[in-house]
């Protein structure tokens, strides 16, 4: 555990005092902080190697291309993809989902077809499918949850029909932290010949992902939530789907040859990486993942589990706190409300006590409404958080209660 506590020193932002003490950053589900190695590599590559990838014949371009393609290999290994060309770089989870929704619908979705989502999706995994459904006159169906926030997977058997074309669901709820049994969902879906997209935005940084073992068809995540730069993301897709998809965006790098009569598209992965990508960011995303690899990701995961359990236990001791969602399996996210205190008021005061939390509907309005509330206070942890910070949060919550009563 001492080794993990030391890692905190790698994150310069956490040494900062906003009001009175070092910032307590509990908004990791929104974005994670960056270690020195990630910050430094971005600076280093801008200073020494900046040059557009896949184009030049000169030293700098070669060097940058090599580093960019190296990240693809790092990610292929990290999620255990079969081929590195199944790893497509995007700007983030949102773009990855939009890409799949658009291309999949173009090829496979017809009028009256059905798309299955869950009630706990982030808006990013709802709206792209709604756009597709509107365009194709298709229908969206929703897997419900029980009172505790567990996904009712058995309902899937009632929802699936011969019209169901794809299932898209989150691995971990960004609001209540539920870890969904995606393996079971994928098994049920595949036994009906339906592909599955997993939104891994909240799971890639907290669990070990093996896309071959899961057998998911698509797995998407954002770089900035796994200690990498903003504007970077990944779409993993099985080769058979990606090969079959039409192109998503047209532009440079995604072509083999262009005439005004016809364009021959490039093969995977470049077919989906039109234009100049955020190549410097992608290099640094590789550095971020290497940081986890070097520092024993399994230890990090174990520590985060202990931290989450401690947070839950401490919060439950406070009689004026109501935890929203008590799922059987939870990742490092806990949402709650305070008796008679608006979440916005609580968030504002916690900020003045140097605690950064997220308040509101967390871009998941259908889920929030299903609990009959209009917002929560969300604490989301990362391995650089400490038990002491959780104690401090609980002390501050008591103070918040005093301020408003």
């Amino acid at each position, binding site marked *: 555990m001492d080794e993990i506590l030391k890692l905190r020193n790698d994150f310069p932002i956490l040494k900062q005092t906003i009001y009175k003490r070092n910032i307590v950053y509990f908004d990791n589900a929104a974005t994670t902080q960056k270690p020195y190695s990630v910050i430094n590599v971005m600076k280093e590559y801008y200073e020494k190697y900046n040059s557009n990838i896949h184009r030049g014949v000169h030293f700098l371009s070669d060097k940058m291309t090599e580093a960019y393609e190296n990240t693809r290999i790092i990610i292929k290994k990290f999620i255990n993809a079969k081929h590195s060309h199944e790893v497509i770089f995007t700007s983030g989870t949102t773009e990855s989902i939009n890409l799949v929704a658009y291309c999949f619908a173009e090829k496979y979705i017809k009028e009256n077809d059905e798309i299955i989502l869950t009630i706990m999706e982030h808006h990013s995994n709802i709206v792209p499918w709604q756009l597709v459904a509107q365009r194709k006159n298709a229908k969206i169906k929703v897997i419900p949850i029980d009172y505790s926030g567990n996904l009712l997977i058995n309902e899937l058997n009632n929802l699936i029909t011969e019209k169901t074309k794809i299932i898209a669901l989150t691995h971990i709820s960004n609001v209540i932290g539920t870890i969904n049994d995606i393996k079971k969902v994928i098994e049920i879906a595949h036994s009906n010949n339906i592909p599955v997209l997993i939104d891994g935005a909240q799971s890639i940084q907290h669990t070990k992902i093996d896309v071959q073992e899961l057998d998911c068809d698509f797995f998407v995540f954002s770089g900035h939530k796994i200690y990498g730069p903003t504007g970077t993301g990944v779409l993993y897709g099985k080769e058979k789907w990606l090969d079959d998809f039409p192109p998503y965006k047209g532009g440079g790098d995604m072509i083999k040859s262009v005439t005004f009569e016809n364009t021959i598209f490039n093969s995977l992965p470049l077919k989906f990486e039109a234009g100049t990508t955020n190549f410097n960011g992608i290099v640094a995303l590789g550095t971020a993942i290497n940081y986890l690899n070097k520092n024993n990701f399994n230890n990090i995961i174990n520590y985060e589990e202990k931290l989450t359990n401690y947070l839950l236990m401490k919060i439950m001791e406070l009689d004026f706190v109501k935890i929203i969602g008590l799922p059987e399996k939870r990742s490092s996210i806990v949402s709650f409300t305070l008796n008679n205190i608006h979440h916005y008021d609580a968030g504002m005061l916690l900020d*003045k006590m140097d605690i950064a939390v997220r308040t509101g509907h967390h871009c998941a309005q259908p889920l929030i409404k299903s609990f009959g509330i209009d917002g929560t206070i969300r604490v989301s942890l990362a391995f650089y958080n400490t038990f002491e910070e959780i104690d401090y949060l609980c002390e501050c919550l008591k103070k918040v209660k005093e301020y408003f009563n």
Partner: protein
Amino acid sequence: MNINEIQNQIIEEFSTFNDWLDKYNYIIELGKNMPPLSEEYKTDNNIIEGCQSKVWLHAEYKDNKVFYYADSDAIITKGLISLLIRVYSGQTPDDIINTQPWFIEKIGLHENLSPTRSNGLLAMIKKIKLYALAFKEKNKQ
């Protein structure tokens, strides 16, 4: 008192606080003590939807002056609103339209006014001025 005199008065009151929490504690007290808006005015028409807290604003026009009444579901937002009402309520449309709420920055609360802040305060200032403009136009007719 005119709008600027009231703004100066508020700045003076806030100058006694040197701690952020004291400042917010005062705003919370203002919020708690603000009379609630009568339910008949809490209509969809009067709502200013922020992303996180809701604000209701009602305005009346009497003797060439605009009177504002407001409420919110969050106490801090309510406290901030009560300051705005203290500044603008009971003033003439022209004064309301032409005077900016510069006291907010002076008392260090401008963070509440950035467009990304989801309390609806920025939208409320806009609506206060729109009411004033509407009454002024109506008066001309």
